[in-house]
């Protein structure tokens, strides 16, 4: 399950997509929207995506991580449109035979998502707005 969604994200659906009898753990990574940026109060956030490419990249990342870490299953959902502060903008569910692979898979998924999936974030402040880019360490289509 690798989707973009305009509206609240559903952890239950992601969990169901990765849970299976061979799993020994399930991890949820939840990225949530912050209320401040460098001291400025953020009123709301808006996410925009290149839809078909973003979903294809999410699925490609999931396939890579599952191939690299045998036994792992991954599902990812990213929100688009208006996202109120403190709500999740991204959910990553991972199941794994053991916790070590589970944590590693979760980390690889979020790092690659930030580097490769074509999604943009606009922060709206009381006195303006700006497009916020991810840190340089996670930039670039080949960033892994």
């Amino acid at each position: 399950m690798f989707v973009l969604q305009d509206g609240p994200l559903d952890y239950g659906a992601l969990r169901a997509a990765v849970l299976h009898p061979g799993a020994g753990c399930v991890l949820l990574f939840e990225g949530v929207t912050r209320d401040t940026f460098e001291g400025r109060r953020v009123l709301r956030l808006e996410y925009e995506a290149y839809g078909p490419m973003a979903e294809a990249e999410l699925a490609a990342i999931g396939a890579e991580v599952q191939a690299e870490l045998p036994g792992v299953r991954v599902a990812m959902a990213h929100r688009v449109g208006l996202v109120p502060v403190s709500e999740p903008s991204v959910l990553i569910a991972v199941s794994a035979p053991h916790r070590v692979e589970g944590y590693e898979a979760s980390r690889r998924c979020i790092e690659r998502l930030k580097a490769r999936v074509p999604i943009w974030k606009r922060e709206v402040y009381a006195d303006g707005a700006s497009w916020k880019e991810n840190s340089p360490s996670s930039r670039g289509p080949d960033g892994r």
Partner: protein
Amino acid sequence: MIVTVRLFAALRELRGCEELRCPIEPGATPQSLFVGLFGDGPLARLPVAYAVNAAYARGDQALRDGDEVAFLPPLGGG
């Protein structure tokens, strides 16, 4: 030859639209198209990545009739 150009984030705002239809000359590339459309403007130095038909592509890839080209500003997902 005609390609469709998809614009996002700051590029979309600057141009005031999400999509353009652009006639191109043989030998045109994503990079040459970007320079033609934005090279004289305030976002000329934006470090964009390129996609052709919804997959990452090199800036010097030759474009073909009917391609969908996207200029991807620095990403902010997550």
